[in-house]
């Protein structure tokens, strides 16, 4: 099963700058293994502890795979796979200790 996999800017170091590469497999897991064979190192950026990383979104034909079986999501010939890092952040919880920042902020 050949599929096109859209690669985000941050991971193009693994694909020689290519925005999209061809992968193969009958599940998302197999496609990622196949990608790893051609683009070593990319798997670790997608998978952690046997599951998809929390801040990596993968879509198969526009569906977020978190709702379609995750790494077990089945892949058919011609499917479109898109990888996008989450866009997230924020100030965080002020109630938590300020760690090492306190010393730097003492002069404010």
């Amino acid at each position, binding site marked *: 099963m050949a599929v096109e996999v859209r690669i985000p800017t*941050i991971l193009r170091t693994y694909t020689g700058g290519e925005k999209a590469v061809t992968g193969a497999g009958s599940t998302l897991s197999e496609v990622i293994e196949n990608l790893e064979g051609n683009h070593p190192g990319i798997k670790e950026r997608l998978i952690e502890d046997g599951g998809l990383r929390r801040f990596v*979104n993968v879509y198969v034909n526009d569906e977020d795979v978190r709702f379609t079986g995750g790494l077990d999501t089945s892949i058919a010939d011609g499917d479109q796979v898109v990888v*996008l*890092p*989450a*866009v*997230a952040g924020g100030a*965080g919880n*002020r109630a938590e200790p300020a760690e090492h920042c306190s010393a730097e902020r003492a002069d404010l």
Partner: protein
Amino acid sequence: MSGFRPGSTLDGVLRIDQGTYDAIVAHAKRDHPNEACGVVAGPEGSDRPERFISMVNAAGSPTYYEFDSQDLLALYKDMWARDEEPVVIYHSHTATEAYPSRTDIARAEEPNAHYVLVSTAEAFSGGDGNSGGPVSFRSYRIIDGTVTEEPVTVVPAPEAASDTDRSQS
């Protein structure tokens, strides 16, 4: 190695037009006390923030923001169709300074983007409901966990916007 590295070799400056700058500040004020977020897209490789796109903070939180997964996909597909990329990724801090938090640094995964932080912490400090207080607007590059602040240059609004203004006078 300390986090701050002065004198980056990057030609770091954010040039942004007044209309877009105002739109980001207005969005941050509107969503206060929750964090506001969005992007300004521009032609790929141009470093020109031209198309303002406010996004919904799916977290709806005063301390965290995240684009909704489907919104994120729709945004990127739209940009790809236009040969654009996110030139600016902005969000607000509503109780703290406009400096990237640990979360901001850990989650910054667009190496070509200017990360704009707006602080509304003092915008509503009058206590009379007046939103005229100062809003700070700062820009950073965040690459591999290294934060480099850069100056912000606000340029006059594009001609289309001033044409609109003239038609109203």
